[in-house]
């Protein structure tokens, strides 16, 4: 949802950041992203975003893995039946081990795919509004708005305590 203007406000403390987010939400603006060096539960609480769908990917991956394990093992012995050691053709305990391992493997791979898809990752170029201090010890809010609202939000952020506000 990109509008024509981006405003980037840099905050040096989490308290000012949280105030900044609160005033934005009070004013009805929800089209912004928050940069932070760490995931903090306060930020998550104040943002009220939807829960991540990555867990669905994990579940689907794990179930696929479990089923594939049984299909692979049972299918392979039915295709080319060989007797070994007097054991039955469909040996449940060993095949269960393989199914268990594939559950975990596919679950992990699906989780990774889910993360990459949802976070739209990996990206080749960084957003030009990204400030290198965001990975270290500063926080940021990037607001997407129309030309007419630029000044309003710039003032809002400065009032709340942003050490730097710029727009592009």
């Amino acid at each position, binding site marked *: 949802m990109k509008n024509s203007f981006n405003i980037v406000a840099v905050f040096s403390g989490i308290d000012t950041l949280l105030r900044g987010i609160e005033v934005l939400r009070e004013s009805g603006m929800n089209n912004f992203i928050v940069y932070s060096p760490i995931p903090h539960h306060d930020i998550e609480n104040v943002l009220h975003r939807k829960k991540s769908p990555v867990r669905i990917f994990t579940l689907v991956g794990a179930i696929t893995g479990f089923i594939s394990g049984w299909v692979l093992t049972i299918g392979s012995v039915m295709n080319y039946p*060989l*007797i*070994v*050691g*007097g*054991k*039955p053709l469909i040996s449940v305990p060993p095949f269960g081990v393989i199914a268990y391992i594939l559950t975990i493997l596919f679950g992990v791979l699906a989780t990774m795919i889910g993360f990459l898809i949802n976070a739209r990752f990996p990206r080749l170029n960084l957003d030009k509004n990204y400030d290198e201090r965001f990975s270290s010890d500063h926080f940021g809010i990037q607001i997407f708005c129309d030309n007419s609202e630029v000044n309003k939000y710039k003032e809002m952020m400065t009032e709340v305590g942003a050490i730097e506000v710029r727009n592009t």
Partner: protein
Amino acid sequence: MMTWENVVEINPSDAKKMIIKRGDILKIISKYGEIELPAYDHNGIKEGTIAISIGYGHTDYGRYAKYSGVNVIGLLSSDPNIYSGGIQWSGIPVTIVKMEKTKRLANVSGSDYSYGRNIIETISINELINQSHSNGDHTEGNKLSIYKSHDHPKHRWGMTIDLDKCIGCSACVTSCYAENNVPVVGKKQVELGRELSWIRIERFFEEQTTQQLESNEMITGFIPMMCQQCDNAPCEPVCPVYAAYHTEEGLNGQVYNRCIGTRYCANNCPYKVRRFNWFDYDFPEPLNWQLNPDVTVRSKGVMEKCTFCIQRIVEGKMNARIESRQFQDGDVVTACQQVCPANAIIFGDLKDPNSKVNKVRDENRSRQYRVFEELNTEPAIVYLKRIKS
């Protein structure tokens, strides 16, 4: 059991008295000469005597005989034996001096004793007479399994080995080498424990107390041990690539081309009959002319073992089909069976009630046993207990 060289065979209690360990080099001095060779203590020698094999220590007899072992004839007197007129092979007094050297021996056996593990079982005549009743049919055994056993639609190969007839001559071992292109690994490799014989004569000294002999006596027992072709083979489920599998005819198959050489099957075999090709072994001229064209020559990294001469089984079945007749007992004779001078080894189809292998079992029910029965491997080879007097 020694290979590749001769040794001083000495009784263990003598060795203990002189603090001689197996492999210690001894100098043997007689009136006529002295030689140095390693000691090998075993119970087959009477106390107070030593024995040394002749025929070793050649200097001009070809590349394998040369310098193999020590020539013992130098210890003997040149005077003829007063009775026979021949060379005095025995009764020569010698002095033994222990040298401070040891060498690793090309000994194929691990321990000489069976520690009560009932590998070679014996039965006395009295027990035999008293047990004229059936002792159970060992072709089926006690099936302690939660899994059903598989069917054998056409044939089921088995073997009976009569330990009372076996004389331990090792002709079976030699014939197996010849028939199955088993390489000779050489002295160094035997010292490291890598000999490749598919069938071997296991020799154990066992203490026996019987009513007739009133004292403990060490007797020697031997048993030809080869792949038991177990129904519940422990080697099969552990092969990662199905190189070891069970055929429909009850054989434990080994697919050389499929083997990747992880050696788990050999670790799992309780009889330790699976042998590994640690190197590519030579068949130096003219030995390569002796190779059997019906059998593959295995490369390094591949596991091999007795196959009940499967090439002969296939040939026998094929001949029966070519001649448009049913397969009969006697169509297939394994190499070991073929050369055994005592006819101790009988091979045949267990599904045929009239086959010799079944007949011998039926006639000797009370003598039937299988090695390591309690491990539930269900071997296809039944041994008949040796009768001790």
